[in-house]
């Protein structure tokens, strides 16, 4: 089986600082992967490299066999850490926008999820709380029938009940041809949903295993192991 995402000796430097330092990684299809690391470890840099928002200094990164660019944007659905949507727009207008932009956008699915989250499609983004805005963004991203979903901190700003709901959304949207990469430091909330975890620290991969391997070998939760590995 060919992997969906491959990187070889991927490095991204900002001046003398290596934000991503010689990472090699393969992610297959049908996986939910946690990209875990403390603040400043390189999670967002990695995700930006995958989206062609940054270009590698060295090494190679392929998604579905292509370097990040127009071709990969068709198959990658990206949730950035910050919102880029116009806040004067109504949710329904943004949905139309997405429908125009992405061939794989499933409008029905988007409205269905809005309903489940009790979000009124005629509301303008600027009238919404931070958490509700985040939910809208996640709904838009998950409503694409993409092959790779890159979610940068999808659960950071929402309350625990909404967090559960977001995780449910992720599980219910699971399909065996697509993979989801979730970057976060809120591990205990999501570890049961993950196949694999990748710990990154100072731009390097320090551990890459399945959740059950970690629990089996260490007798600890991924969250507990994380606290140990990244102890300040």
């Amino acid at each position, binding site marked *: 089986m060919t992997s969906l995402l491959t990187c070889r000796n991927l490095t991204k430097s900002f001046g003398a600082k290596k934000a991503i330092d010689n990472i090699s990684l393969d992610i297959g299809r*049908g996986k939910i992967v946690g990209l875990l690391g403390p603040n400043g470890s390189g999670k967002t840099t990695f995700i930006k490299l995958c989206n062609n928002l940054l270009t590698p200094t060295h090494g190679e990164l392929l998604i579905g066999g292509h370097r990040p660019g127009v071709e990969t944007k068709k198959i990658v659905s990206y949730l950035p850490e910050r919102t880029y949507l116009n806040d004067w727009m109504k949710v329904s207008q943004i949905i139309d926008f997405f429908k125009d932009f992405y061939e794989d956008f499933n409008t029905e699915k988007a409205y269905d999820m809005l309903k489940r989250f009790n979000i009124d499609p005629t509301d303008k983004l600027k009238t919404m709380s931070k958490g509700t805005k985040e939910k809208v963004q996640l709904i838009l991203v998950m409503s694409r029938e993409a092959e790779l979903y890159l979610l940068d901190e999808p659960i950071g700003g929402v309350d625990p009940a909404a967090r559960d709901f977001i*995780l449910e959304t992720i*599980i219910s949207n699971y399909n065996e041809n697509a993979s989801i990469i979730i970057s976060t430091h809120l591990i205990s909330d999501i570890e049961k949903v*993950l196949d694999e975890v990748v710990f990154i620290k100072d731009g390097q991969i320090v551990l890459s295993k399945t*959740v059950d391997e970690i*629990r089996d070998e260490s007798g600890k939760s991924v969250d507990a192991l994380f606290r140990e590995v990244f102890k300040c």
Partner: protein
Amino acid sequence: MPWDLKPDRPIYPQLIEAIELKICSGVYPPGSKLKSVRDLAQEAAVNPNTMQRALAKLEEDGLIYTHRTSGRFVTEDANMVKQLRNKIAKEEINQLFQKMKILGFEKKEILDLISIMLEESDNK
């Protein structure tokens, strides 16, 4: 019956145990149809691949079976469920024994205490 998953043990065996318990306690009666992998994964809030693996193991053990077109079902073999029920009960009692041993109880004392407590709970 909630999916009570502990954070310090692998999820896969815990899912197997949870489903076994649901079968033995009649939450999933013999011959009944199971929900889809996705629905079960959602209910337990776990990864669908992990749920899939757990179901595959239970199928291998013969406790559930797949009907080619209509999904997964609990075995109709009542004897098998009974055996599993006994196995789970023995494991629970074994754990109790181990704790009682740590507390320094003798066999006779354990039995007496259990009898007294059973009577008390009957009278309630």
